[in-house]
């Protein structure tokens, strides 16, 4: 398996916001090939964050910080929408639709149990990673206020639960 810095890292809206909140976005995008989809970047803009306290994020700078931001066609999103699985929000679904369509060694980072379940049941257990692990891979300090769902232990525990369900 190629090292993380040689692989496209797909991040969802939550990860973009948490990395900005904890001030670890720059080391992340500086050390890795971070990518997302149009819907996730739109959801990360100030005013669109669906959070009470809006982080001030400059849209131009945010877009520029990504290695790529992908537009996802309606038919690709529709293909994912037809699949069984957990109920995802539109940005999460678009990110997975894009990932399903790619042929390279992408890795996906998201903190939501349903999004992780979606990847798990479709056979991508080894393609999902926590924000904490990504930060470690670039030698960045782990912010002390990093929330639970972005930590490696949370993701490990979640996968252990999923594994028990399928036995």
């Amino acid at each position: 398996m190629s090292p993380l810095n040689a692989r496209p890292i797909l991040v969802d809206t939550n990860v973009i916001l948490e990395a900005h909140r904890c001030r670890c976005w720059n080391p992340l995008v500086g050390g890795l090939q971070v990518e997302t989809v149009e819907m996730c970047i739109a959801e990360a803009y100030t005013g669109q964050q669906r959070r009470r306290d809006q982080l001030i994020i400059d849209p131009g700078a945010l877009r520029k910080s990504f290695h790529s931001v992908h537009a996802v066609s309606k038919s690709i999103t529709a293909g994912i929408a037809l699949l069984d699985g957990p109920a995802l929000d539109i940005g999460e679904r678009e990110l997975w639709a894009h990932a399903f369509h790619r042929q390279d060694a992408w890795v996906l980072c998201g903190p939501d149990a349903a999004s992780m379940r979606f990847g798990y049941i479709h056979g991508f257990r080894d393609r999902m990673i926590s924000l904490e692990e990504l930060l470690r891979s670039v030698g960045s300090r782990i912010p002390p206020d990093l929330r639970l769902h972005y930590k490696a232990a949370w993701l490990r525990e979640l996968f252990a639960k999923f594994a028990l369900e399928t036995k």
Partner: protein
Amino acid sequence: MQLKLGWKLRALREASGLTQAELARVLGIENRQSLGLIEAGSRKMSAEELVRAIEFFEIPIDEFATPFVVSPESRFSWRQEGVANADLVRFEQQAGEWLAAWLELAQATGFDIAPIRQRLSLTRSSSFEDAASAGEHIAASWELGPVPAKVLPQAVESRLNALVLMVDALPGISGAACRLPTVDAILINRCEPDYRRNFDLAHEVFHVMTWESMPPEHIDGASPTNRRVEQLADSFASGLLMPASVLRDYDENSPDLASQIAEAAAELNVSGTALRWRLASAGKISQDVARSLPADELRNGRSKRVEAPPALYSKKFMEILARGIAEGHISVARTAKLARTNIDELADLFCVHEVTCPFEL
């Protein structure tokens, strides 16, 4: 998912007044039979067909391809006044999404949702007194205590294994009784005054408990033939919220009789008017005296301060959402959209209902 897509497609087609053959042509589906199979969940819809459908109906993909759709057999009966039909249809879709989500997540997380379909032995020809007695009987057998209105939502949820949701409904909508094949539910507009909410809930309990013998209309009281059912529901609600055991005796000659009744009504969380007629029907005061009581004095017992509405939805509803999130059956962002909140408000809502917030993100 295919079955839910089929239900959604059927609902959209019927709302547009199209035949299966017409829609099949629009979507480029071979024939009417194939569309029928898609609507029944027996034939898979392709991505291209789905795209054509969302473009034709002009709705976002996540609204179309949602797992939270109620089955076509689901029925709603709305208590409303002056709400435009198109607005009611839209709100019914929203209500259907709440109920379908609850049902879907309850099943996914192994929660027992089978409704306890306790029936009232009343018919259209029952008397109003019989309906009130049935209400009293329920208040006693469910052990609702001295102020039935206070505990009624929780009692309905536990005794009938139904769902009672406090919702932000459009102005004019008081509430609804809902019957899904495997769920009974009551929606109450939480922005209505407490006495009205309580009476609406008791009224809807009647519909839930008499659905087979006296199926309510889609809009309560829309046709004169069903008016009697609505009156029986009101009598039942009176008996349920104001059983004889909690009614005091009054001196009909007292100069402040109206104020006394108003105060008692406030204690019972009902309106002074409702208590006035209940006292008359229970023989505590005469019909003539009841009629003579001034309406403005009957309202005097109500607190002048504006009370905050009850928390959105219910603890039972939020518990299932929490389980769904924790086990990864619904994402937090999708849940927030379902609950019509942002993510922080969703966390607050769990807290208000004393349900452990299932996420930290």
